[in-house]
């Protein structure tokens, strides 16, 4: 009896598995993994490599793709990050009261506090550097923002009782998000394309002031990601009790 019912249940599952596997196979068999797609004439990657620097004014091709050619996707990414951070915050808020309370641990040692205070400004400066030079060197808004959030985390480790303003964090996050959309709307107003880089020829290629609107977008993303991640870290610390 036992075996029979197991087989009866297994057969439909097997059929569904084969159906799904077959559908996926049919869907992906056309892609041709391992083929050389870059050498073909109409490959989009070639267009980016050939025209990326002249069309966007950014000497970092990854940035020209992320912020210019695929700028709208990046807006989606920022939204996904925002939703993820909001979801984690909501989950922490749903915890029962005693789960939220911070256990009073021992004070951090002198080494931790002093060493942390020495390192924090440098880390924050480095994060700012990374998102300011996003159009020139590896890195960008997301990476710089996360580096700034690590400085904030180190601050909370070095001084667990420090007062932090959640309002300021959400305010700077919202303003940065708004300015991202505002920069997009400038493009919509001037040339009719959302997030269009309307002053792309501005500045000299390879210098700090170049790339048109790209650095501004990366600054907005950097501030947004930095304050978002810092807010997340602050939520995880729990309420002072």
């Amino acid at each position, binding site marked *: 009896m036992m075996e029979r019912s197991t087989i009866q249940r297994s057969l439909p599952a097997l059929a569904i598995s084969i159906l799904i596997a077959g559908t996926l196979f049919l869907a992906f068999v056309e892609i041709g993994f391992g083929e050389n797609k870059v050498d073909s004439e109409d490959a989009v990657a070639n267009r980016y490599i050939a025209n990326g620097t002249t069309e966007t004014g950014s000497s970092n091709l990854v940035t020209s793709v992320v912020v210019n050619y695929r700028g709208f996707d990046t807006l989606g990414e920022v939204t996904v990050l925002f939703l993820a951070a909001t979801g984690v915050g909501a989950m922490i808020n749903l915890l029962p009261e005693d789960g939220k309370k911070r256990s009073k*641990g021992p*004070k951090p*040692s002198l*080494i*931790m506090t002093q*060493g942390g205070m*020495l390192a924090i400004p440098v880390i924050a400066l480095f994060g700012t550097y990374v998102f300011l030079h996003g159009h020139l060197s590896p890195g960008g808004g997301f990476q710089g923002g996360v580096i700034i959030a690590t400085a904030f985390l180190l601050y909370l480790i070095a001084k667990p009782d420090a007062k932090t303003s959640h309002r300021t964090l959400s305010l700077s996050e919202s303003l940065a998000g708004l300015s991202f959309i505002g920069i997009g709307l400038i493009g919509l107003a001037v040339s009719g394309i959302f997030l269009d880089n309307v002053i792309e020829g501005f500045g000299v290629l390879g210098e700090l002031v170049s790339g048109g609107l790209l650095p501004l977008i990366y600054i907005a993303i950097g501030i947004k990601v930095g304050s978002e991640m810092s807010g997340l870290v602050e939520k995880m610390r729990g309420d002072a009790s």
Partner: protein
Amino acid sequence: MIAINEIIGMVLMAIGLLFQVLGAFGLIRLPDVYNRLQAATKSITLGAISIAIGVGVAEPTLLPKALIVAFFLLLTNPIISHGIARAAYRSGVPLWKGSVIDQYEKALERSGKGGDPQ
């Protein structure tokens, strides 16, 4: 003919690599958190700094950057390892059964329970 500074740089990088590999072995082979931190701190810090200095010596234009990297490794790695070890001890991670000495426990007792010896 290879320049003398390149040879010195290569030797420094080789020493650093050796210490990195030993540190990685230590992370896997040593028995508890505190022993592993020994491997992760001392060996890895020396290895990384040696590689950074080696790069700077072999390629003198990179020397300032390499020195900055070395300085921050020297600043951050020991502090964070200290923090991890202290947090592990305070939250009750046991020492390996073959450990022979626990000076931190005595220091805690001297300064009163829960106090902070500094």
